[in-house]
């Protein structure tokens, strides 16, 4: 009797234990370790560090390169995220639309998702060779007569950034489509049917039904993409010289962090400071997104049916 009682009380803990243990070891401890390292002048080549307070951070804020990396990271993320979510919403709306009845949705979705399966190294090497001085793009544009002579595309700040943005968009919009479509198909069809009976246009249905009910999904996409975007590393690192060339224009927070870590002495304290600032910034922004997109009247998600009707009656 007593035995079963214990069992019943502790079952839950057993079930969540794997996650909690993994989180403590791989989540919380590294975070704590990074925080404590960021307050030292620890380097890999000396293997000793002393507590230096916030000096790493003051150096960082005086560092032109850090401010530039910060700006680059935001710019590249925003310019890739906005079209990404836009295209994903549009295509998902078409794919799930009952009137359009697009054939082979699964195939399209798979095709859009494919770039995500490629290894970033391969994609970066491919684009680097496409845009190189003797590469196919130069050869084609000159022979067609569009360009007078070959140019160093990846020496141009705007073009290089555009290439990074395009690759990020191209790699990730398929993923976003899958999530958005999952969200859209979970919206009850009878809402749309009722709206159609009432004579709502497709645009009205999208704005009044789809978007409000999709909000939790959108918040999820927003936050995961923000976290990913602030940690952008592989494509910009591999596309040019691994140091943000040209003119540090594709240097992101993580490339800077890696440069400090991989510098001749391995300034792991300074690298941790970059990581801590990225963490703080991402956390604040993610909380901001939750705050801005929160359910203000708390009825939309819990009772979708009623909110639809009340809103509709308001507009009439």
């Amino acid at each position, binding site marked *: 009797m007593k035995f079963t009682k214990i069992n019943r009380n502790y079952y839950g803990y057993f079930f969540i234990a794997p996650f909690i243990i993994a989180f403590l070891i791989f989540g919380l401890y590294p975070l704590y370790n990074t925080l404590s390292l960021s307050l030292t002048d620890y380097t890999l*080549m000396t293997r000793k560090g002393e507590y230096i307070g916030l000096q790493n951070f003051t150096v960082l804020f005086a560092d032109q390169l850090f401010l530039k990396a910060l700006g680059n990271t935001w710019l590249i993320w925003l310019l890739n995220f906005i079209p990404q979510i836009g295209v994903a919403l549009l295509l998902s709306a078409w794919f799930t639309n009952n009137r359009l009845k697009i054939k082979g949705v699964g195939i399209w979705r798979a095709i859009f998702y494919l770039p995500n399966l490629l290894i970033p190294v391969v994609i970066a090497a491919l684009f680097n060779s496409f845009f190189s001085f003797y590469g196919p793009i130069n050869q084609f544009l000159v022979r067609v007569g569009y360009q007078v002579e*070959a140019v160093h595309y990846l020496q141009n700040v705007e073009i290089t950034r555009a290439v990074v943005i395009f690759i990020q968009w191209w790699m990730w919009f398929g993923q976003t489509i899958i999530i958005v479509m999952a969200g859209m198909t979970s919206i009850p069809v009878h809402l749309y049917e009722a709206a159609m009976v009432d004579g709502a246009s497709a645009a009205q249905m999208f704005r009044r039904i789809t978007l409000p009910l999709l909000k939790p999904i959108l918040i999820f996409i927003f936050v995961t993409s923000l976290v990913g975007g602030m940690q952008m590393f592989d494509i910009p690192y591999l596309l040019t010289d691994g140091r943000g060339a040209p003119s540090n224009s594709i240097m992101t927070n993580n490339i800077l962090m890696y440069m400090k870590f991989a510098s001749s002495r391995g300034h792991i304290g300074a690298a941790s400071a970059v990581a801590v600032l990225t963490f703080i910034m991402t956390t604040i922004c993610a909380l901001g997104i939750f705050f801005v997109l929160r359910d203000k009247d708390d009825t939309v998600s819990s009772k979708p049916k009623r909110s639809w009707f009340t809103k509709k009656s308001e507009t009439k």
Partner: protein
Amino acid sequence: MRKSLLTILSLLMIASMVLAACGGGAPETDAPADSGSGSGGSSDSGGSASTGGEKQVLKVWSFTNEILTMAVAFEGQNPDVDVQFTMIPMDAGEYQTKIKAAIGTADVPDVVALEAAFVKEWVEADFLADLGDLLPLAEELQTYPSVVEVGTHEGVTKAYSYQATPGAFFYRRSIATECLGTDDPAEVQALVNDIESFLEVAETIKQCNPNYFTVGTSGELFNPFLANRAQPWIVDGALVIDPQVEAYIDFAKLMRDNGYESQANQWSEGWFAGMNDSLVGADGQPKKVFSYFLPTWGLPYVLIPNSGDTGGDWAMINGPLAYQWGGTWVGAMADSKNLDLAKQFVAFVALNEENLTNWATGVYTNEYLKAIDPTIADGQSQAAGDFVSSQVVVEKITSSFDGSPLYEWLGGQNNYEAFSLAAPNVNGALLTGSDDAIQRALQSARDQYLNGEIDKATMWKQWLDVVRSEFPDLVIPEPPQ
């Protein structure tokens, strides 16, 4: 029907998950030798030669598979030793990062190969063992003083090299005959004896045929210019911008603006294509490259493998500037559990007359290595011609290259003789541990300036900003005007 389809689908899914798991694991297992697996236990047996079943394990890390050849030869001489060789590429610093991360862990290698770009970092730090007791061997073999100097910091020698890497200037005999009127090495050397006359030759070649470029990229002259500085990059905690650095930037701009270079980045496809006349401009015209600045190792590893059927049409001279470039040093980690064996290995690789002679004269063929270790890959071997660090060996084997395939490839020139004349001029004191970061930052800003994206003042500023960011304690001078 429906059910079987589901079964097939779910099987496919499981298969793809297994495959995905394998794919994720691949990068870690791509190293030829598997590290770990109880090697620590067996290596504790230490110095005494254990003839029983257990072999002594020596973990060697490198960034190319060159040293694997010598590791197999070492195993041939020491049958009770198992050298576990791991290759990690260093294109973007992965190799250096990997060693730094391994320090203090059970995975720490016993012996590491260190490239010229970062050997000083390690020699200046405390992780390499003091190999001073091998110095008598170096004296005996008359290792080039610059080679030992690079491996020495504050009087402690921690790394040795099997190579000396004086640089040379390789040019195409056919283009020289067509445009300069002679292909004789002595006469061409007289024409390109300094940078000014080199620029005149570049203009002559351009006038001779607009589809000929004098060099692949002016980036090839970065090392030659830097090798002629009066001071290293860092002196007493301050960055030194030597006049040679400014001279190089002006030179590179001139080369770009006048169209003397093919503009293919070093190590890019186009750069290699110029070595075998397969370079085609965007205008559809075939282009030719007159010359390449490459050091000793550049001949067997870079130029010849990429030269296609242009062999025999090349010649080598000292060129406008004496320089050295690259080279691989070998050191033992102080943490090594097998320090005696590690020292023995370093001595074999860099300070063993027999090994160096075999290395340079092409004894280590694939068959030779397969006889020792049948599992070795088919391509693994060492062709004749690498320039070794010992003057004793160099003097003994120089004449053996007369009439060799290399001799024929150079249109009847003994490359060993030419390198042996250049090697003593090399200055080993210019290397410092911070060179790599400083130079890569300068190259990035330079490319922007050469391409006309930024002006010269911005270039200096951009470079110094990056240096300041990487070395916050360094005193940075005012940028040049």
